[in-house]
Protein backbone atom coordinates (compact mmCIF):
# COMPACT_ATOMS: atom_id res chain seq x y z
CA UNK A 1 0.00 0.00 0.00
CA UNK A 2 2.64 2.45 1.05
CA UNK A 3 4.88 1.16 -1.76
CA UNK A 4 2.23 1.85 -4.37
CA UNK A 5 1.70 5.33 -3.03
CA UNK A 6 5.43 5.98 -3.29
CA UNK A 7 5.43 4.84 -6.89
CA UNK A 8 2.52 7.20 -7.55
CA UNK A 9 4.50 10.02 -6.04
CA UNK A 10 7.48 9.16 -8.19
CA UNK A 11 5.33 9.18 -11.30
CA UNK A 12 3.87 12.52 -10.26
CA UNK A 13 7.24 14.15 -9.87
CA UNK A 14 9.09 12.29 -12.62
CA UNK A 15 10.75 14.71 -15.04
CA UNK A 16 9.20 14.69 -18.52
CA UNK A 17 11.14 12.85 -21.24
CA UNK A 18 14.05 14.70 -22.86
CA UNK A 19 12.11 15.43 -26.07
CA UNK A 20 9.32 16.96 -24.04
CA UNK A 21 11.78 19.05 -22.03
CA UNK A 22 13.20 20.35 -25.29
CA UNK A 23 9.72 21.37 -26.46
CA UNK A 24 9.12 23.13 -23.15
CA UNK A 25 12.39 25.08 -23.22
CA UNK A 26 11.64 25.94 -26.85
CA UNK A 27 8.20 27.31 -25.97
CA UNK A 28 9.46 29.27 -22.97
CA UNK A 29 12.34 30.85 -24.88
CA UNK A 30 10.30 31.49 -28.04
CA UNK A 31 7.66 33.30 -26.02
CA UNK A 32 10.10 35.80 -24.54
CA UNK A 33 11.62 38.77 -26.30
CA UNK A 34 14.27 39.15 -23.59
CA UNK A 35 17.04 36.68 -22.77
CA UNK A 36 16.21 34.22 -19.99
CA UNK A 37 18.84 32.92 -17.59
CA UNK A 38 19.23 29.21 -16.99
CA UNK A 39 17.85 29.80 -13.49
CA UNK A 40 14.71 31.46 -14.87
CA UNK A 41 14.15 28.63 -17.34
CA UNK A 42 14.73 26.04 -14.61
CA UNK A 43 12.17 27.75 -12.37
CA UNK A 44 9.52 27.42 -15.09
CA UNK A 45 10.20 23.82 -16.05
CA UNK A 46 8.86 20.81 -14.14
CA UNK A 47 10.96 19.61 -11.23
CA UNK A 48 13.82 17.29 -12.11
CA UNK A 49 14.20 18.69 -15.63
CA UNK A 50 17.58 19.30 -17.25
CA UNK A 51 17.19 22.66 -18.97
CA UNK A 52 20.91 22.83 -19.74
CA UNK A 53 20.72 19.70 -21.85
CA UNK A 54 17.48 20.86 -23.48
CA UNK A 55 19.09 24.16 -24.45
CA UNK A 56 22.15 22.49 -25.93
CA UNK A 57 19.93 20.26 -28.11
CA UNK A 58 17.74 23.24 -29.08
CA UNK A 59 20.76 25.34 -30.07
CA UNK A 60 21.93 22.49 -32.32
CA UNK A 61 18.49 22.06 -33.83
CA UNK A 62 18.25 25.74 -34.73
CA UNK A 63 21.83 26.09 -36.03
CA UNK A 64 21.70 27.39 -39.59
CA UNK A 65 17.98 28.14 -39.44
CA UNK A 66 16.36 31.55 -39.98
CA UNK A 67 16.06 31.85 -36.21
CA UNK A 68 18.88 30.85 -33.85
CA UNK A 69 19.25 30.25 -30.14
CA UNK A 70 22.05 32.47 -28.85
CA UNK A 71 23.70 33.09 -25.50
CA UNK A 72 23.36 36.75 -24.61
CA UNK A 73 23.43 39.02 -21.55
CA UNK A 74 23.77 36.16 -19.10
CA UNK A 75 20.94 34.13 -20.62
CA UNK A 76 19.51 32.55 -23.75
CA UNK A 77 17.31 34.06 -26.45
CA UNK A 78 15.99 33.28 -29.91
CA UNK A 79 17.20 35.82 -32.46
CA UNK A 80 16.88 36.05 -36.24
CA UNK A 81 19.99 34.99 -38.17
CA UNK A 82 22.30 37.99 -38.80
CA UNK A 83 22.51 37.31 -42.56
CA UNK A 84 18.74 37.87 -42.84
CA UNK A 85 18.74 41.24 -41.08
CA UNK A 86 18.03 43.03 -44.37
CA UNK A 87 14.56 41.39 -44.50
CA UNK A 88 13.49 42.90 -41.19
CA UNK A 89 15.31 46.19 -41.33
CA UNK A 90 12.36 48.04 -42.80
CA UNK A 91 10.62 47.48 -39.49
CA UNK A 92 13.63 48.50 -37.46
CA UNK A 93 13.34 51.66 -35.52
CA UNK A 94 15.73 54.28 -36.75
CA UNK A 95 18.32 54.79 -34.07
CA UNK A 96 20.21 57.96 -33.44
CA UNK A 97 23.63 58.13 -34.98
CA UNK A 98 26.14 58.13 -32.19
CA UNK A 99 28.97 60.64 -32.18
CA UNK A 100 32.55 59.44 -32.27
CA UNK A 101 32.98 60.72 -28.72
CA UNK A 102 29.98 58.68 -27.55
CA UNK A 103 31.16 55.49 -29.28
CA UNK A 104 34.67 55.81 -27.88
CA UNK A 105 33.41 56.59 -24.41
CA UNK A 106 31.17 53.52 -24.58
CA UNK A 107 34.08 51.32 -25.65
CA UNK A 108 36.31 52.69 -22.89
CA UNK A 109 33.63 52.03 -20.27
CA UNK A 110 33.01 48.53 -21.66
CA UNK A 111 36.68 47.53 -21.71
CA UNK A 112 37.85 49.33 -18.56
CA UNK A 113 34.81 49.02 -16.30
CA UNK A 114 34.39 50.07 -13.59
CA UNK A 115 36.01 53.30 -14.78
CA UNK A 116 35.85 56.88 -13.49
CA UNK A 117 35.20 59.95 -15.58
CA UNK A 118 38.77 61.15 -15.02
CA UNK A 119 40.12 57.85 -16.35
CA UNK A 120 37.93 58.11 -19.44
CA UNK A 121 39.28 61.60 -20.04
CA UNK A 122 42.83 60.40 -19.53
CA UNK A 123 42.44 57.72 -22.18
CA UNK A 124 40.70 59.96 -24.70
CA UNK A 125 42.95 62.93 -23.98
CA UNK A 126 40.03 65.35 -23.88
CA UNK A 127 37.56 66.50 -21.29
CA UNK A 128 34.34 64.46 -21.37
CA UNK A 129 31.72 66.49 -23.14
CA UNK A 130 28.60 67.25 -21.23
CA UNK A 131 25.85 65.02 -22.51
CA UNK A 132 28.01 62.15 -23.78
CA UNK A 133 27.71 60.12 -20.59
CA UNK A 134 24.15 61.36 -20.21
CA UNK A 135 23.26 59.95 -23.64
CA UNK A 136 24.83 56.57 -22.90
CA UNK A 137 22.88 56.42 -19.62
CA UNK A 138 19.71 57.46 -21.46
CA UNK A 139 20.24 54.59 -23.94
CA UNK A 140 20.50 52.33 -20.87
CA UNK A 141 23.88 51.04 -22.04
CA UNK A 142 25.81 52.55 -19.14
CA UNK A 143 25.01 53.10 -15.48
CA UNK A 144 26.73 54.20 -12.30
CA UNK A 145 28.88 51.51 -10.71
CA UNK A 146 30.35 51.26 -7.23
CA UNK A 147 32.35 54.20 -5.97
CA UNK A 148 36.09 53.85 -6.31
CA UNK A 149 37.66 53.44 -2.88
CA UNK A 150 40.28 56.12 -3.46
CA UNK A 151 40.46 59.66 -2.06
CA UNK A 152 37.33 61.54 -3.08
CA UNK A 153 35.52 58.23 -3.67
CA UNK A 154 34.73 59.07 -7.32
CA UNK A 155 31.73 57.48 -9.02
CA UNK A 156 32.49 54.82 -11.62
CA UNK A 157 30.65 53.78 -14.76
CA UNK A 158 29.83 50.26 -15.92
CA UNK A 159 27.85 48.76 -18.80
CA UNK A 160 24.34 47.32 -18.36
CA UNK A 161 22.56 44.09 -19.31
CA UNK A 162 20.81 46.08 -22.06
CA UNK A 163 24.26 46.87 -23.51
CA UNK A 164 25.12 43.18 -23.62
CA UNK A 165 21.75 42.37 -25.17
CA UNK A 166 22.05 45.07 -27.82
CA UNK A 167 25.54 44.00 -28.89
CA UNK A 168 24.80 40.29 -28.58
CA UNK A 169 27.36 39.56 -25.88
CA UNK A 170 26.94 36.76 -23.31
CA UNK A 171 28.85 38.82 -20.72
CA UNK A 172 31.28 41.72 -20.42
CA UNK A 173 34.09 39.15 -20.41
CA UNK A 174 33.15 38.25 -23.98
CA UNK A 175 34.00 41.64 -25.46
CA UNK A 176 35.97 41.12 -28.66
CA UNK A 177 39.73 41.23 -28.20
CA UNK A 178 39.51 41.72 -24.42
CA UNK A 179 42.18 39.13 -23.65
CA UNK A 180 44.59 40.46 -26.27
CA UNK A 181 44.23 44.01 -24.96
CA UNK A 182 44.82 42.78 -21.43
CA UNK A 183 47.89 40.82 -22.53
CA UNK A 184 49.22 43.90 -24.31
CA UNK A 185 48.99 45.82 -21.02
CA UNK A 186 46.51 48.27 -22.47
CA UNK A 187 43.69 47.72 -19.98
CA UNK A 188 45.44 47.78 -16.63
CA UNK A 189 45.50 50.44 -13.97
CA UNK A 190 46.19 53.99 -15.10
CA UNK A 191 49.74 54.13 -16.38
CA UNK A 192 50.50 57.72 -15.52
CA UNK A 193 51.65 58.76 -12.10
CA UNK A 194 49.94 62.09 -11.58
CA UNK A 195 51.72 65.08 -13.01
CA UNK A 196 54.39 63.16 -14.84
CA UNK A 197 52.74 62.16 -18.05
CA UNK A 198 51.57 64.14 -20.99
CA UNK A 199 48.80 66.58 -20.17
CA UNK A 200 45.40 64.95 -20.05
CA UNK A 201 42.85 67.61 -20.61
CA UNK A 202 42.59 71.25 -19.69
Amino acid at each position, binding site marked *: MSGASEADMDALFAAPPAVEQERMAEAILFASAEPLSLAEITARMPMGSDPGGAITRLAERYAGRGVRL*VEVAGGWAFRTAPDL*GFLMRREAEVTR*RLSRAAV*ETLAIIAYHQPVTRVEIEEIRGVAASRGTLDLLIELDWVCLGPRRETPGRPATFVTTAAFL*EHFGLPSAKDLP*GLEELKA*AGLLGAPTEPAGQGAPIAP
Partner: protein
Amino acid sequence: MSPLETTDVAERPALDPDTLTVDVDGFEGPLDMLLAMARTQKVDLRRISVLPLAEQYLAFVERARSKRIELAADYLVMAAWLAYLKSCLLLPAEEVSDEPSGEDMAARLALRLERLDAMRRASAELMARDRLGQDVFARGAPETVAVNRQVRWRVGLADLLRAYTRLGSAAHYRPLQIERPEVYGVEAAMERLRAALGVRLDWSALVAHLPADWLAVAERRRSAVASGFVASLELAKRGEVDLRQAEAFAPLMIRPRRAATAESAA
Protein backbone atom coordinates in the same frame (compact mmCIF):
# COMPACT_ATOMS: atom_id res chain seq x y z
CA MET B 1 25.71 48.63 -42.90
CA SER B 2 23.29 49.56 -40.20
CA PRO B 3 21.79 53.03 -40.02
CA LEU B 4 23.74 53.55 -36.86
CA GLU B 5 27.22 53.44 -38.26
CA THR B 6 29.95 55.42 -36.70
CA THR B 7 32.68 57.39 -38.28
CA ASP B 8 35.13 54.93 -39.64
CA VAL B 9 38.82 55.37 -38.99
CA ALA B 10 39.33 55.94 -42.71
CA GLU B 11 36.94 58.89 -42.65
CA ARG B 12 39.05 60.66 -40.09
CA PRO B 13 40.45 64.06 -41.00
CA ALA B 14 43.27 63.98 -43.48
CA LEU B 15 46.70 64.96 -42.35
CA ASP B 16 49.31 65.79 -44.91
CA PRO B 17 52.74 65.26 -43.39
CA ASP B 18 54.49 67.43 -45.99
CA THR B 19 52.40 70.54 -45.94
CA LEU B 20 51.32 70.10 -42.34
CA THR B 21 47.92 71.39 -43.24
CA VAL B 22 45.77 70.21 -40.44
CA ASP B 23 42.13 70.77 -39.83
CA VAL B 24 42.13 71.18 -36.08
CA ASP B 25 38.35 71.02 -35.97
CA GLY B 26 38.46 67.43 -37.16
CA PHE B 27 40.43 66.26 -34.15
CA GLU B 28 39.25 65.44 -30.69
CA GLY B 29 42.05 67.13 -28.82
CA PRO B 30 45.84 67.08 -29.04
CA LEU B 31 46.23 63.37 -28.22
CA ASP B 32 43.98 62.52 -31.16
CA MET B 33 46.10 64.72 -33.41
CA LEU B 34 49.32 63.15 -32.12
CA LEU B 35 47.87 59.73 -32.91
CA ALA B 36 47.12 60.81 -36.47
CA MET B 37 50.68 62.16 -36.80
CA ALA B 38 52.08 58.93 -35.36
CA ARG B 39 50.24 57.00 -38.06
CA THR B 40 52.18 58.87 -40.74
CA GLN B 41 55.33 57.13 -39.47
CA LYS B 42 53.81 53.96 -40.88
CA VAL B 43 55.23 51.71 -38.18
CA ASP B 44 53.71 49.72 -35.36
CA LEU B 45 52.73 52.15 -32.62
CA ARG B 46 54.95 50.12 -30.30
CA ARG B 47 57.98 51.17 -32.33
CA ILE B 48 57.02 54.78 -32.80
CA SER B 49 59.84 57.34 -32.60
CA VAL B 50 58.66 59.93 -30.15
CA LEU B 51 61.29 62.58 -30.90
CA PRO B 52 60.30 63.15 -34.55
CA LEU B 53 56.67 62.99 -33.44
CA ALA B 54 57.27 65.76 -30.89
CA GLU B 55 59.09 67.79 -33.54
CA GLN B 56 56.26 67.29 -36.01
CA TYR B 57 53.71 68.48 -33.48
CA LEU B 58 55.81 71.49 -32.47
CA ALA B 59 56.30 72.36 -36.13
CA PHE B 60 52.56 72.24 -36.61
CA VAL B 61 51.98 74.57 -33.65
CA GLU B 62 54.66 76.93 -34.94
CA ARG B 63 53.02 76.96 -38.34
CA ALA B 64 49.62 77.63 -36.89
CA ARG B 65 51.10 80.51 -34.94
CA SER B 66 52.75 82.02 -38.02
CA LYS B 67 49.43 81.81 -39.82
CA ARG B 68 47.79 83.43 -36.82
CA ILE B 69 45.50 80.45 -36.34
CA GLU B 70 44.29 80.38 -32.77
CA LEU B 71 44.81 77.03 -31.12
CA ALA B 72 42.82 75.86 -28.14
CA ALA B 73 44.64 75.97 -24.83
CA ASP B 74 45.02 72.20 -24.55
CA TYR B 75 46.96 72.12 -27.84
CA LEU B 76 49.36 74.67 -26.42
CA VAL B 77 49.69 72.79 -23.13
CA MET B 78 50.58 69.68 -25.09
CA ALA B 79 53.11 71.69 -27.11
CA ALA B 80 54.78 72.94 -23.94
CA TRP B 81 54.96 69.43 -22.56
CA LEU B 82 56.38 68.05 -25.81
CA ALA B 83 59.00 70.82 -25.90
CA TYR B 84 60.03 69.78 -22.40
CA LEU B 85 60.05 66.12 -23.43
CA LYS B 86 62.18 66.98 -26.45
CA SER B 87 64.75 68.77 -24.28
CA CYS B 88 64.84 65.80 -21.91
CA LEU B 89 65.44 63.45 -24.84
CA LEU B 90 68.21 65.58 -26.33
CA LEU B 91 70.11 66.49 -23.18
CA PRO B 92 72.34 63.88 -21.55
CA ALA B 93 70.51 62.18 -18.72
CA GLU B 94 71.45 63.35 -15.27
CA GLU B 95 73.11 60.77 -13.11
CA VAL B 96 70.77 60.95 -10.16
CA SER B 97 67.38 62.52 -10.53
CA ASP B 98 63.91 62.15 -9.09
CA GLU B 99 62.44 63.37 -12.34
CA PRO B 100 61.36 60.68 -14.80
CA SER B 101 63.81 60.38 -17.64
CA GLY B 102 62.98 61.53 -21.16
CA GLU B 103 62.88 57.89 -22.27
CA ASP B 104 60.34 57.06 -19.54
CA MET B 105 58.09 59.94 -20.53
CA ALA B 106 58.40 59.04 -24.21
CA ALA B 107 57.51 55.43 -23.48
CA ARG B 108 54.45 56.52 -21.53
CA LEU B 109 53.30 58.79 -24.32
CA ALA B 110 53.72 55.93 -26.80
CA LEU B 111 51.66 53.69 -24.51
CA ARG B 112 48.92 56.29 -24.28
CA LEU B 113 48.78 56.59 -28.05
CA GLU B 114 48.65 52.83 -28.35
CA ARG B 115 45.87 52.63 -25.78
CA LEU B 116 43.81 55.33 -27.49
CA ASP B 117 44.32 53.54 -30.79
CA ALA B 118 43.26 50.24 -29.21
CA MET B 119 40.07 51.82 -27.88
CA ARG B 120 39.38 53.30 -31.33
CA ARG B 121 39.62 49.88 -32.89
CA ALA B 122 37.59 48.31 -30.09
CA SER B 123 34.79 50.83 -30.54
CA ALA B 124 34.75 50.20 -34.29
CA GLU B 125 34.60 46.47 -33.64
CA LEU B 126 31.81 46.93 -31.11
CA MET B 127 29.73 48.98 -33.51
CA ALA B 128 30.29 46.44 -36.29
CA ARG B 129 28.69 43.66 -34.25
CA ASP B 130 25.31 42.24 -35.16
CA ARG B 131 23.11 44.52 -33.16
CA LEU B 132 19.66 43.89 -31.77
CA GLY B 133 16.98 45.74 -33.67
CA GLN B 134 19.30 46.38 -36.62
CA ASP B 135 20.92 43.12 -37.66
CA VAL B 136 19.22 40.57 -35.47
CA PHE B 137 15.68 40.71 -34.17
CA ALA B 138 13.86 39.43 -31.13
CA ARG B 139 10.48 37.77 -31.12
CA GLY B 140 8.05 40.38 -32.38
CA ALA B 141 5.03 39.04 -30.55
CA PRO B 142 6.06 37.79 -27.12
CA GLU B 143 3.47 35.47 -25.66
CA THR B 144 4.09 36.01 -22.03
CA VAL B 145 0.82 35.79 -20.22
CA ALA B 146 1.62 37.19 -16.84
CA VAL B 147 -0.48 35.72 -14.11
CA ASN B 148 1.71 36.09 -11.08
CA ARG B 149 2.68 39.48 -12.25
CA GLN B 150 5.96 40.53 -10.73
CA VAL B 151 6.66 44.14 -11.42
CA ARG B 152 10.24 45.17 -11.82
CA TRP B 153 10.51 48.91 -11.52
CA ARG B 154 12.78 50.46 -14.02
CA VAL B 155 14.38 53.26 -12.10
CA GLY B 156 18.05 53.85 -11.49
CA LEU B 157 20.24 56.18 -9.57
CA ALA B 158 20.47 58.51 -12.56
CA ASP B 159 16.66 58.87 -12.66
CA LEU B 160 16.67 59.64 -8.97
CA LEU B 161 19.30 62.33 -9.38
CA ARG B 162 17.63 63.89 -12.39
CA ALA B 163 14.38 64.06 -10.46
CA TYR B 164 16.16 65.63 -7.55
CA THR B 165 17.79 68.37 -9.60
CA ARG B 166 14.48 69.10 -11.29
CA LEU B 167 13.30 70.20 -7.88
CA GLY B 168 15.12 73.51 -8.02
CA SER B 169 15.03 74.32 -4.35
CA ALA B 170 15.55 70.83 -3.01
CA ALA B 171 19.30 71.04 -2.62
CA HIS B 172 18.96 74.15 -0.52
CA TYR B 173 15.99 73.07 1.51
CA ARG B 174 16.28 72.91 5.27
CA PRO B 175 13.41 71.75 7.42
CA LEU B 176 11.81 74.61 9.31
CA GLN B 177 13.02 74.80 12.87
CA ILE B 178 12.33 77.58 15.31
CA GLU B 179 15.81 78.61 16.30
CA ARG B 180 16.23 79.15 19.98
CA PRO B 181 18.55 82.04 20.68
CA GLU B 182 21.79 80.88 22.14
CA VAL B 183 21.98 81.45 25.88
CA TYR B 184 24.99 81.40 28.17
CA GLY B 185 23.66 79.89 31.37
CA VAL B 186 23.95 81.49 34.82
CA GLU B 187 25.22 78.21 36.24
CA ALA B 188 27.96 78.10 33.64
CA ALA B 189 28.89 81.70 34.42
CA MET B 190 29.14 80.95 38.15
CA GLU B 191 31.36 77.96 37.52
CA ARG B 192 33.57 80.01 35.30
CA LEU B 193 33.86 82.92 37.80
CA ARG B 194 34.68 80.59 40.67
CA ALA B 195 37.40 78.91 38.64
CA ALA B 196 38.82 82.20 37.42
CA LEU B 197 38.82 83.89 40.82
CA GLY B 198 40.29 80.86 42.54
CA VAL B 199 43.74 81.89 41.34
CA ARG B 200 43.42 85.66 41.81
CA LEU B 201 43.42 87.96 44.80
CA ASP B 202 43.11 91.43 43.29
CA TRP B 203 40.26 93.28 41.64
CA SER B 204 39.55 92.47 38.02
CA ALA B 205 36.86 93.38 35.50
CA LEU B 206 33.92 90.98 35.42
CA VAL B 207 33.86 90.85 31.62
CA ALA B 208 37.47 89.71 31.55
CA HIS B 209 36.34 86.39 33.03
CA LEU B 210 33.68 85.71 30.45
CA PRO B 211 34.48 83.33 27.54
CA ALA B 212 36.03 85.16 24.60
CA ASP B 213 34.10 83.27 21.93
CA TRP B 214 30.85 84.47 23.52
CA LEU B 215 31.99 88.06 23.63
CA ALA B 216 32.87 88.07 19.94
CA VAL B 217 29.30 87.90 18.62
CA ALA B 218 26.73 90.57 19.54
CA GLU B 219 23.79 88.32 20.49
CA ARG B 220 26.00 85.91 22.39
CA ARG B 221 27.79 88.77 24.12
CA ARG B 222 24.52 90.10 25.49
CA SER B 223 23.65 86.73 26.96
CA ALA B 224 27.12 86.18 28.41
CA VAL B 225 27.29 89.61 30.06
CA ALA B 226 23.78 89.27 31.52
CA SER B 227 24.49 85.82 32.92
CA GLY B 228 27.88 86.92 34.20
CA PHE B 229 26.24 89.81 36.02
CA VAL B 230 23.55 87.62 37.59
CA ALA B 231 26.20 85.07 38.56
CA SER B 232 28.35 87.74 40.21
CA LEU B 233 25.36 89.01 42.22
CA GLU B 234 24.57 85.47 43.30
CA LEU B 235 28.18 84.86 44.37
CA ALA B 236 28.22 88.17 46.26
CA LYS B 237 25.00 87.20 48.03
CA ARG B 238 26.59 83.92 49.05
CA GLY B 239 29.55 85.84 50.44
CA GLU B 240 32.06 84.43 48.00
CA VAL B 241 32.97 87.65 46.16
CA ASP B 242 33.06 91.42 46.51
CA LEU B 243 31.78 93.69 43.77
CA ARG B 244 32.67 97.28 43.08
CA GLN B 245 31.76 99.87 40.49
CA ALA B 246 33.44 103.30 40.42
CA GLU B 247 30.46 105.08 38.82
CA ALA B 248 27.42 104.38 36.68
CA PHE B 249 28.37 102.45 33.50
CA ALA B 250 31.93 101.98 34.69
CA PRO B 251 33.27 98.43 34.45
CA LEU B 252 32.04 96.14 37.21
CA MET B 253 35.00 94.90 39.22
CA ILE B 254 35.10 91.66 41.11
CA ARG B 255 37.44 89.96 43.61
CA PRO B 256 37.16 86.92 45.83
CA ARG B 257 35.98 87.54 49.40
CA ARG B 258 39.01 85.75 50.86
CA ALA B 259 41.15 88.53 49.37
CA ALA B 260 39.27 91.02 51.53
CA THR B 261 39.81 88.89 54.64
CA ALA B 262 43.48 88.61 53.86
CA GLU B 263 43.64 92.41 53.40
CA SER B 264 41.90 93.22 56.69
CA ALA B 265 44.01 90.67 58.53
CA ALA B 266 47.18 92.27 57.26
